[in-house]
């Protein structure tokens, strides 16, 4: 045994103080008596001196002395020398996906069991450098190999599972390759990795049955406002499960009782009349994994584009715009922000806010049109420009085109007789495009490529509602905002802004209803926990456990002070109990 701080042994002198206090207390006991006058004159009993001496070896004193000795020894930091295995690097990977929050039959979550396992592993290698990784769709290194044991212990105290889905084996491989030299990697999870990763020892942490909603969709019926909710519910237990399924849009609701056979997935279609765009499906009663007992969905309805038309009307362009997207055309006099301004055959006196499409129109500082000149064949000067994607300009004919007298820096895409026909640039941070010719002096509206050209222009200037808009998004996976037009901000379920103007994607961290605000208004977006988390059953059987690698032996000092403190507390409790017992006897 060795002592870390032998200087504290000096405190053993406190034993003397305990003995002194004991004799001071034992020397004279104080009593109140009613008839002192009867005691006055009574002679002291000489025999009691011997009795007092006998009392000096007292069990209470012995217990006090032992307790003080234990405490002083504990302060000196005693330890027993021993040997422990030492690795050059140990990685503990904790699956922090949503399913790890499932409560097991013992009352602890799977994650808490994983943390317990991690602590055991830490204590097996008391001197090895360790890194702890919290692994999910958004993995995070809690501490690196250079951190000390105290930091590792604190990191485990703080670690909590998130709402994300599982990380991929490739992500894990990437993380481990950047973590330094690792002799041993232990992965605690409730389901094995999709494909094994070389050198990773997998430990399954299971427990807790789950019945959950794994899919939810809402489709409009032919006669609105009727809708049908499609729900898939999975019973991941070995017994029949009775649940009540309820689908609601906040006003109307429909309920049905379910009897789910063991380890099966059932689909249900529930028609009802809806009055909102946010639908919630929930199962009751809830179970050990509550995250999938409720799911939300926001059907991806088209977001209308608000376009302000200035100048001469043109039904060809208007028809092409309407064919491209859901358009809400407003006049000059109507107030409010718009996604795009189209100016046709007009010289704008002042620049409008937002993206701008000039057709045979001008704007001071951007483009100024002059006299009409004869047209001719259309020449392509920027074939790679996205505005020409799928468009063949060779079919275009132009009878006349105005001279472009001044043009801001930008990119000329098409020219006619040396005059820019199609041009794109920027005005401040806002995009602007110009078709210099009057459409009625060209054959553009008659070509099959015209709607394509208009769609490309709209997509480049505003960003068209994309085809990839989803009814719901998944926690931990980036959500593209390309389908929402001009995004002003995104707020999470708590109302906090998590993405600002111009954001093209955001990363949801919690499930719930997010709000995407655009120039045309607000659209809800449901975010749910990854449905794959609802069924964390083993996808493949684990290979036979890999034996831990051979580790070097290192000398360690195994602390014994906790035992000494416990012994001191026990002795003091015994002393108190005995003293109390003696006191009661004396009173009786």
């Amino acid at each position, binding site marked *: 045994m060795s002592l870390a701080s032998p200087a504290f042994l000096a405190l053993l002198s406190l034993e003397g103080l305990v003995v002194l206090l004991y004799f001071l207390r034992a020397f*004279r006991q104080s*009593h109140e*008596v009613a008839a*002192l006058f009867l005691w006055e004159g*009574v002679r*002291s*009993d000489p025999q*009691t001196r011997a*009795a007092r001496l006998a009392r000096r070896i007292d069990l209470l004193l012995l217990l006090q002395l032992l307790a003080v000795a234990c405490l002083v020894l504990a302060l000196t930091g005693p330890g027993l020398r021993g040997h422990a295995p030492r690795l050059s690097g140990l990685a503990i990977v904790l699956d922090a996906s949503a399913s790890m929050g499932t409560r097991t039959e013992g009352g602890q979550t799977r994650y808490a069991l994983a943390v317990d396992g991690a602590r055991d592993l830490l204590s097996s290698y008391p001197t090895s450098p360790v890194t702890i990784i919290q692994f999910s769709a958004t993995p995070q290194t809690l501490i690196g190999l250079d951190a000390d044991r105290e930091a590792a212990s604190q990191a485990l105290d703080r670690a909590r599972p998130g709402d994300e889905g599982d990380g991929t084996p490739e992500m894990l491989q990437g993380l481990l390759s950047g973590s330094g030299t690792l002799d041993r990697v232990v992965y605690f999870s409730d389901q094995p990795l999709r494909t094994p990763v070389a050198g990773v020892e997998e430990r399954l942490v299971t427990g807790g049955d789950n019945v959950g909603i794994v899919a939810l969709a809402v489709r409009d019926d032919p006669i609105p406002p009727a809708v049908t909710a499609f729900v898939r519910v999975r019973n991941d237990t070995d017994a029949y499960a009775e649940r009540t399924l309820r689908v609601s849009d906040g006003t109307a609701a429909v309920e049905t009782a379910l009897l789910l056979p063991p380890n099966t997935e059932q689909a249900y279609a529930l028609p009802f009349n809806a009055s909102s765009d946010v639908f919630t499906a929930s199962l009751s009663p809830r179970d050990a994994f509550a995250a999938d007992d409720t799911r939300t969905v926001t059907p991806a309805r088209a977001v209308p584009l608000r376009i302000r038309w200035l100048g001469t009307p043109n039904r060809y362009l208007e028809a092409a715009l309407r064919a491209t997207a859901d358009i809400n055309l407003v006049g000059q006099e109507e107030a409010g922000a718009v996604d795009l301004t189209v100016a046709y055959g007009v010289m704008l006196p002042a620049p409008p806010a937002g993206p701008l499409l000039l057709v045979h129109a001008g704007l001071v500082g951007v483009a100024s049109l002059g006299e009409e000149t004869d047209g001719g064949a259309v020449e392509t000067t920027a074939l790679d420009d996205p505005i020409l994607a799928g468009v063949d300009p060779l079919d275009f004919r132009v009878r006349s085109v105005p001279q472009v007298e001044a043009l801001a820096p930008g990119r000329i895409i098409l020219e006619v007789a040396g005059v820019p026909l199609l041009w794109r640039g920027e005005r401040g941070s806002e995009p602007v495009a110009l078709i210099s010719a009057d459409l009625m002096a060209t054959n553009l509206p008659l070509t099959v490529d015209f709607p394509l050209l208009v769609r490309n222009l709209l997509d480049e200037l505003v960003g068209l509602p994309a085809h990839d808009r989803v009814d719901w998004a998944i926690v931990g996976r980036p959500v593209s905002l390309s389908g929402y037009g001009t995004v002003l901000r995104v707020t999470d379920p708590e109302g906090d802004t998590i993405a600002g103007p111009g954001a093209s994607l955001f990363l949801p961290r919690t499930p719930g209803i997010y709000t995407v605000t655009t120039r045309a208004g607000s659209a809800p977006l449901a975010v749910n926990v990854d449905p794959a988390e609802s069924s964390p059953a083993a996808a493949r059987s684990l290979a036979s456990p890999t034996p831990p690698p051979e580790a070097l032996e290192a000398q360690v000092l195994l602390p014994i002070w906790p035992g000494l403190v416990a012994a001191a507390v026990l002795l003091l409790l015994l002393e108190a109990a005995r003293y109390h017992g003696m006191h009661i006897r004396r009173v009786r």
Partner: protein
Amino acid sequence: MDPLIDEAFLRRLAHLRFFARGRRRGHLAGAHASPRAGMSLEFADYRDYSVGDDFRYIDWNIVGRLDRVLVKTFVREVDLPIVLLLDLSASMRLGHPSKGVYAARLAAALAYLGLREYDRVGLYPFTDHLLPAIPPRQGMSQMAHILGALNHLSPGGRTSFDDILTQYVGQSRESGLVFLLSDLLSEGGYADGISRLLYRGDEVVVIQIVDPQELHPALAGPSRLTDPETQRHVDLSVGDRARAQYEARLTAYLDALRAFLLDRRVPYLLAPTDLPLEQLIHERMRAQGVLQ
């Protein structure tokens, strides 16, 4: 019900009543015989007829035999003023339960007995002076006053019986049945005070309340013994011999007290606090003739 006494205990007191040996001079109707003639069924004496006497009380047999006109007189029944003198000096807080609590319970029981028999009962707590008292009154509302006072009393200070009894005699206007509830362990004398009470015509009952530890102390070893009233102390090494000396002195003190009271026909009861109150009242007080 007040925690000092419980209902079951009071029910068991129902058939008891105080016994006054002499005829009392009370002024309210009650259950005790008065030295003055009055209206009751109990015959007292004859006296010569005088003008104004009620003809119904003339004994016509006597008139026929002796040719003298005599009228019959009857015993007048009056109430018995009962006074509880309660010692609240600091020494009364000693013991488990304390002597003060035991005395308060006993006082409550005695008050109930008296009030139930339509007697007037008063409470006079004292230390070295008389504390605010509850003068004797009839009726069960007086019980509430007495219990309320007993609940709020706490022992403290010192006492001197001669002085306090002299003060009491000077302050109260009528004699009655006086219960002195105290440990009577005081260096100051008690003889003068008790004599004054007897001289005035009070019937005195002395109940000495002691802690069993005072009768047979279990002290051992070096001890500092302190008087809670005077704060004087004695340092002593207590063993068998010292305890024997103390017990001998205590016995002598108690014997002297008992002899003094016996000479004056004053009932005396020694009540250790481990003696059940019921036993004290039902057995010892009846044996002493205080209750019947």
